[in-house]
């Protein structure tokens, strides 16, 4: 099996498409979360290797979720995603564990693999 992935996004349609796309390209999607708090719990419970994390979430934003996940040191690889352009998000905080950013419309297994 390929790497385990957790998808964090508040739009069900994106989660469904991303799951299909990634599974098709050899990743194992072990869970989905629709907000930041859910993401933190799911990471603890499922210990995925990769977290595909939407920047804009209804409760705490993706940057904050990434910061909390990487604060422990032993965190999964985090890849940020958004339907906005990367230039609209301001400087991405470079942190250990945050591997990079993929625009939602350009998401593919290959793009994800390239960042890991």
């Amino acid at each position: 099996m390929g790497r385990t992935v957790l998808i964090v996004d508040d739009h069900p349609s994106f989660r469904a498409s991303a799951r299909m796309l990634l599974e098709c390209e050899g990743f194992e999607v072990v869970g989905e979360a629709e907000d930041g708090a859910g993401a933190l719990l799911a990471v603890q419970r499922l210990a995925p290797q990769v977290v595909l994390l939407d920047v804009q979430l209804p409760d705490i934003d993706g940057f904050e979720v990434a910061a909390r996940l990487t604060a422990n040191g032993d965190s999964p690889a985090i890849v940020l995603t958004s339907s906005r352009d990367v230039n609209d998000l301001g400087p991405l905080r470079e942190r250990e564990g945050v591997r990079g950013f993929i625009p939602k419309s350009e998401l593919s297994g290959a793009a994800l693999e390239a960042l890991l």
Partner: protein
Amino acid sequence: MTSLRRALWALAAAGFVFGLAVVALIVTSDTPEYPAAWAAGGLAVGWSFIGVGLFAWGRRPDNRVGMLMTATGFAWLVAGCGLSDLPLVFTLGQGVGTLFFAVAVHLLLAFPSGQLESRADRCIVTGAYIVTAVAGLALWLFSDPRSLGCDDCPDNVLLVYDNETLVNAISTVINLIGAALITGVVVVLIRRWRRATPSQRRFLVPVYAAGIAVGIMLIATVALQVGGLDDPVLEAAWIAAMVPLGLVPYVFLGTLIRARMIQSRAVSELVARLSGTPRPGELRDALASALGDESLELAYWVPEQDRFVDAQGRPVELPEQGTGRAVTKVRREGSYVAAIVHDPVLDEQHGHVEAVCSAASLALENERLEAELRAKVEELRESRQRMLRVGLEERRRLERDLHDGAQQRLVSMALSMRLARARLRDQPEAAERLLDGASEELDAALDELRELARGIHPAVLSDRGLDTALEALAHRTPLPVDLESTPGRRLPEAVELAAYFVVSEALTNVVKYADATHATVNVASENGRVVVQVADDGVGGADPERGTGLRGLADRLAVLEGRLEIDSPPGRGTTVTARIPCG
């Protein structure tokens, strides 16, 4: 002649006759050492109080000061009866004569308003009446004047049982209560002076003078009772104490006359001061000095906004009654001009505030016009800011809607397309399903974009007018909507747009929250304004503070000086009414 006037003349006649009767009683009596001095002094004091009291009563029937002063005079004459040597008259005068002090204290504490303002005042006055009337009579049930050292005194007709110990005990109680009441009066008067404004102090001077005079009389009376009713020196002192007391009513009268003179001078000074063009703020200062109230504030009436504003045009709340400030509203030619917020004591100076107001009404009207202009500028500034805020909020909402709606659908479509492309050769059926899904997403995205575009500006409204746009709206709503009336003609674009959005937002809410079976829409143009009404038969209980939709509508309407009302009793449906001015 009014009935009041007749009653006052009758009282004057009664006072006159009573006074003469008391003189006759005293002069023919063996009891006093100096009957002539007693009679003359007693008559002067009694008639002064009654005369001045009736005069003040006639001038200001609504103010109790005149009545109290008259009552003080009569009580004094009753006390004078105590010098008679006729047993019944003597007993009556001695028994209830001390009531004079209670009425005098009442007068002191009630001047100049005629009302006892505080609880402490009321307690003291009630206490004084009880001690002087009830306890005084009780005392006379047990005291024989002869055993108290007055050999010339006639019999006490009330005497039930002569007991010196009991009399001493009752006297001690009365004296203790009396001392407590006097202390109370002193404390109240000192407190009042401390709190008083300069114009209030003008009225307190005679109160203090009178208080001292009554105090001297009280000391003389107590001394006479303690020292023996027939000690010539104490009797002479008592007679001398009548002089300041007799002056009291004239001091009161003088204060009222002086206040009136000061008032008329103030009005003429004000007129002179306002004859030029007053500088900003000068009118307030001129009124403050004319009324002797530095704390005075002015507020100007703005009829269009239906409220009072300050000189800068900012809205002001006028103080309620009982907040320690009084309000006098100034009218000119039947409509409000201004409100003067002032010290309530000015209301006691009968007609003075009104006289000053009418002298200043033209100047006030001029300042009102300026304040009204400023208020309008202020209102404009506020509505411009509101408009800006509404605009910003709408743009934010638009961005959010685009992001959450069409953009997400397009993203998921892009992903499906990529997936389909990858499977095109190996799994053409799966690719087909993916393309079908993508196509559905595309349709949904188009729908959402259309809806959004309509939300930004409904094209049908500008092309074909409100009537058609409302029909389209009613048709699109997934609920039976009766379009009962529409204006039937084109209205200004901004008004049409606002009316359209009211109906649109209200119908959206009906569908989302009301659980209704149908809704009715009425849009009527009447008396230069458009009234939009959307009613449903749903669950009611809508809270305008809850959603941002209704608040946004209210703001949008406020820009057009329109108003939004929501009537939504629980269980009885919701009616949203918007009134939009339409020139």
